[in-house]
C-alpha cells in the first residue's frame, strides 16, 4: 500500500495483569493496514490476535491492560483516547464483528431497531429515517424479505442471518476499518462461504479496510492480500498471503502449513504422515525466554534460547522474526 496507512500499529504491547505481575500477552507487534486493504491475522488460541483487535477498538478490559506502543488511526494516536472520544470512533469509523453474533446482539430488541440505532447514534438521523435505512442495510447484506425481517428478534434468525445482521450493524456507518474476529467459525461451511463473500464484496464497494482474524490459515490466505502470523503474543511473520503457503519463512509457519491436511492434498500427492509440531501452545503466564517458539522448534540452536530475535525484512517483501529463517 502506498501513501499514508489507514491504521498503523507500532510496537504494541498488551499485558495480562495477575496481582502485581505483568505478562506480555502481546509484545512488540507492528503492522499497518492501507485504505481498503484486507489484512489477516492468523494464530492459535492465546496467541494474542483477538486482544490485539480489542485494543484497536478500545475494548480492552481487566485483567488485560495496555502496556506500550502506539496505535495510529488516520495519523492520529488513539491508544490513549478518553472513553467518550473512543465511543465516537467505535461503530462509526472503526467497527467490529464477533464470532458468536447471538452474544453481540441485544436479545430483547428487534434487529431492525439495533441497526437503526447506529444511524441515530452516529449520523444524527431521526428514528423514522433510521428505520427506513435499516431495511436498506438488511437488503445490502442480502437478507431475504428485509422489510419483514427488521421486526424479527435475534433468536428468530439462524446463525448465518444473525451474522448478516451483525455485518449490517458494523457497516451501517460506512466505517473505514472493520475488525472481523473469527466471523464464520460458528457457521457451517456453505454459510461461511456466503458470509465471506459478503464481507469481501461490501468492503470492496464501500472502500472499507478489513482486519480479518482467524485460526484458519486457508481462510485467511483466501481472503487477504497480506497476512500476519502470530505465535505466543508475537508477530512472527508478515507476508503476502500466498507466499505464506508457498514458501513459509518462520519455522512455526512452515510447521503449521506442513501439518495441515489441505483439501486435495491426498488426491494429488497421496497420503503421507502429517508433519507434527511437537509440544503444546504455551500459556500467557509461561511464555518461554528467548524466541517464544524455541521449545517446539526443529531449527533451534543456542541463540534461540538466549536471545529474542529481532524482526528481519525479507528480500521478497515481508518480515520475519527468527534467527534462522528460511
Amino acid at each position, binding site marked *: 500500500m502506498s501513501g499514508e496507512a489507514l491504521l498503523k500499529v507500532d510496537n504494541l504491547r498488551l499485558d495480562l495483569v495477575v496481582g502485581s505481575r505483568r505478562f506480555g500477552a502481546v509484545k512488540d507487534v507492528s503492522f499497518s493496514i492501507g485504505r481498503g486493504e484486507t489484512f489477516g491475522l492468523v494464530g*492459535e*488460541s492465546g496467541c494474542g490476535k483477538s486482544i490485539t483487535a480489542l485494543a484497536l477498538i478500545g475494548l480492552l478490559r481487566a485483567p488485560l491492560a495496555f502496556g506500550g506502543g502506539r496505535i495510529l488511526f488516520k495519523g492520529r494516536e488513539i491508544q490513549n483516547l478518553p472513553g467518550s472520544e473512543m465511543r465516537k470512533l467505535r461503530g462509526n469509523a472503526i467497527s467490529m464483528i464477533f464470532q458468536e453474533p447471538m452474544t453481540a446482539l441485544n436479545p430483547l430488541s428487534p434487529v431492525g431497531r439495533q441497526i437503526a440505532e447506529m444511524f441515530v447514534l452516529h449520523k444524527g438521523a431521526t428514528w423514522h429515517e433510521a428505520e427506513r435505512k435499516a431495511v436498506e442495510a438488511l437488503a445490502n447484506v442480502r437478507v431475504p424479505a428485509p422489510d419483514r425481517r427488521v421486526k424479527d428478534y435475534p433468536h428468530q434468525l*439462524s446463525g*448465518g*442471518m444473525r451474522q448478516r445482521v451483525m455485518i449490517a450493524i458494523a457497516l451501517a456507518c460506512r466505517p473505514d476499518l472493520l475488525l472481523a474476529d473469527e466471523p464464520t467459525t460458528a457457521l*457451517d*461451511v*456453505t*454459510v*461461511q*462461504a*456466503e458470509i*465471506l*463473500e459478503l464481507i469481501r464484496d461490501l468492503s470492496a464497494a464501500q472502500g472499507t479496510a478489513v482486519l480479518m482474524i482467524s*485460526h*484458519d*490459515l*486457508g*481462510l485467511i*490466505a*483466501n*481472503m487477504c492480500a497480506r497476512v500476519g502470523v502470530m505465535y505466543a503474543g508475537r508477530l512472527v511473520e508478515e507476508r503476502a*498471503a*500466498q507466499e505464506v*503457503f508457498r514458501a513459509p519463512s518462520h519455522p*512455526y509457519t512452515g*510447521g*503449521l502449513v506442513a*501439518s*495441515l*491436511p*489441505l*483439501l*486435495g*492434498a*491426498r*488426491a494429488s500427492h497421496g*497420503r503421507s*504422515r*502429517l*508433519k*507434527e*509440531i*511437537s509440544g*503444546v*501452545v504455551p500459556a500467557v503466564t509461561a511464555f518461554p525466554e528467548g524466541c517464544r517458539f524455541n521449545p*517446539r522448534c526443529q531449527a533451534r540452536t543456542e541463540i534461540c534460547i538466549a536471545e529474542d530475535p529481532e524482526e528481519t525484512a525479507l528480500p521478497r517483501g515481508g518480515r520475519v522474526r527468527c534467527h534462522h529463517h528460511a
Partner: protein
Amino acid sequence: MPETDAMILKVEDLAVHFPLGGGLLGGKRRTVHAVDGVDLHLKKGECLGLVGESGCGKSTLALSILGLQAPTRGRVLLDGVDIAAPGVDRKARARIVQMVFQDPYSSLNPRQTVRRTLEDPLRLHGITDKAEVDGRIEEMLRHVGLRPEQAARYPHEFSGGQRQRIGIARALILKPKIVVLDEPVSALDVSIRAQIINLLLELKETMELSYIMISHDLGVVEHMSDRVAVMYLGRIVETGGWHAIFTAPRHPYTRALIAAIPDPFGERPGVKISGELPNPLEPPSGCRFHPRCPEVRDICRKPPTPPLGEIAREHEVRCLRAAELA
C-alpha cells in the same frame, strides 16, 4: 481394498424422529425427522467419513449406533445382532463400539484421575486382577503417547491435546472393534491437530479398529477416510470411496460443500450455493436439496424423493440428474 473385506457393521433403514409440541395443551403434534432412512455399512479396518452441515443428522445417527439414541425405525447390525435395539446389554455393546468426543475439556470427569478414568471401565467389565489392570492401563497410555506416571494426575493438569489422548485411551481401553470419532480434532489448536490425526491413524492399524468419523473439516475427512457418506436433512445424498467423492463428486450438494472450503490459492473452482438449511419440520418436497440446488429442474421439486442410485461401483448418489451431471 480387496473385494473380500469383511463387513463389520451394517445400518439398515435407520430413522430417528423427534416429536415436537403437542402434549396436554393440544396443538398440532409435529415430528422432526432427524435421521430418515439411512443405510450404511462399515468394513473391517476402514474409516468412514460422515460429513454434512449442522442439522443433517450425522450426530444423531452416530448416537444411535452407540445406543445413546433409540431409533424410531431400522436396525444397526453387528455380526447379525441388532445393537441399537432397546433391550441390548449396555456392557456387551460397550466392548464393541466406543466413542471419542469433540471437546477434550467437557469429556473428562474433572474429579477423576486418568487412572480412575481408565480403571473403572476395566473393573466394570470384569477385569479385576490388579496386575492385569495396571498392565492394560500402562500399555494404553503408552499407545496414546502419554507416560504411565501421568496416570495419577487430574484432567486439568493436561493440555487440550493431551486430554484428547486421554479421551482416546478411554475409548480404546475395552479394546472395541469400532470407534465413533465425533469431530476429534476440531476443538484442538491447529498446531496440535496433526499429532492427534497421526495418532488415530496409527491406532487404527495397531489395534485393528474401524472408524466412523464425523467431521465438518473436509481436509481432515479426505486425509483420514477410506469411504465418505454425505448427509443432508437426515438422508445420505452421496456415498463412495474418498477418491471419488473428492475428485469426482456427483451430487450438487457434495460439490457445493467442497467448493465452500476457502482455497488458500484462490484456484478451486466450483458451484456456490445460496440460502440456508430449510426448516426440518417442513422438509421440501421431492429432492430435499432442491431449494438450494444450482442444477434444479422442475422434476426435482415433485415427490417422491429420488432414490440413492449407484453410478459406479461403490458410488451412490441421490440425484435425479446424476447421469447428466457427470
